[in-house]
């Protein structure tokens, strides 16, 4: 493949795999505030290595490898939080990334499932994921204890996961 095509192809592949790469980074680094920077650093490195990419090989796996290094880099950098898992665990997890269902379909199904749980549960989910509030802030907004917020979040996520699994299984069959 000509070099110019190769250099143009890699950013396109990255955009196609953006949901997966972003999900991978969020999993290893649940602190939302740094995820964007790590994904962007990953993008810059992936595009910088465009010439090394061999057509026909697994692009996503290569992107995950680079993302893993960027997460580790961020974990050792200033402002890193203790909550990041240790290096051995991150490597073990990276080696066992599950085959993903179609990300776009999963997102669509998840959007449908958000109508399922109770209104209160969805408000908590929105405050956490849409408004980026921490549990103590959600507790203040809802007039609950932090523990009650944690329980509500855990229950809502469980209900959503079961709903998504059920809908994806139904679509497969």
């Amino acid at each position, binding site marked *: 493949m000509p070099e*110019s095509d190769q250099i143009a192809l890699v950013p396109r592949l990255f*955009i196609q795999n953006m949901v997966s790469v972003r*999900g991978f980074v969020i999993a290893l680094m649940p602190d939302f505030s740094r995820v964007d920077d790590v994904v962007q650093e990953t993008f810059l490195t992936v595009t910088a290595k465009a010439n090394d990419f061999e057509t026909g090989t697994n692009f996503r796996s290569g992107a995950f490898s680079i993302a893993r290094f960027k997460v580790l880099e961020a974990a050792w950098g200033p402002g890193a939080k203790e909550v990041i898992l240790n290096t051995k665990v991150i490597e073990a997890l990276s080696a066992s990334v*599950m085959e993903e269902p179609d990300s776009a379909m999963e997102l669509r199904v998840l959007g449908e499932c958000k109508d399922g749980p109770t209104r209160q549960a969805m408000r908590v989910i*929105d405050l956490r994921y849409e408004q980026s509030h921490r549990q103590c802030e959600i507790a203040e907004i809802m007039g609950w204890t932090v523990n009650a917020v*944690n329980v509500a979040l855990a229950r809502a996520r469980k209900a959503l996961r079961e709903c998504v699994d059920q809908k994806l299984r139904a679509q497969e069959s």
Partner: protein
Amino acid sequence: MDTPRLDHLLNSYLDGNLPPEEKHELEGSLLASPDARRQFWRAARLHGALRLLGGQESGAGAAQREPDLPGKDKVIHVGRRFWIGAAAAAAIALVAIAAEFWPSRNTAQGHLAGVEPNTPNGLVVPPESTKPKLSERLFSASPHESASERIAASRNRLDQLRTKFHYQPASRL
């Protein structure tokens, strides 16, 4: 480890409030058990998808919504901000590629200026370009450079590109 206990640890991890002793417990379980790692990815994938969905909704609906929550001014539109950053990064890559491979006016003039009146058959023979290719300029390395020197050099060159195209990482937007 039983499933409810693992669920509890994973929820605390994803919410960023895992105490150190429980973090060690989770890490031990993830290292020891493939099932725990599978469970981790299921939970993490939902966490990432919810965040992505929340980010999209936050970006799309922010303009229409009235502030109705205390602390609303703290909303961070990470999803929109990320896409702006990604678009900027992609634009940099495309501009750099275009600048490198698009036949510019100056180059064409250079070719014409370089025509020898006595060229056989009257063909225009462009002078051999001595300018290194983009990939060479970005990633060329002398055999004496160590890996860390090459990484540092690549970073500097990327920083130069960022400066040249006024690119700011998302966190600074």
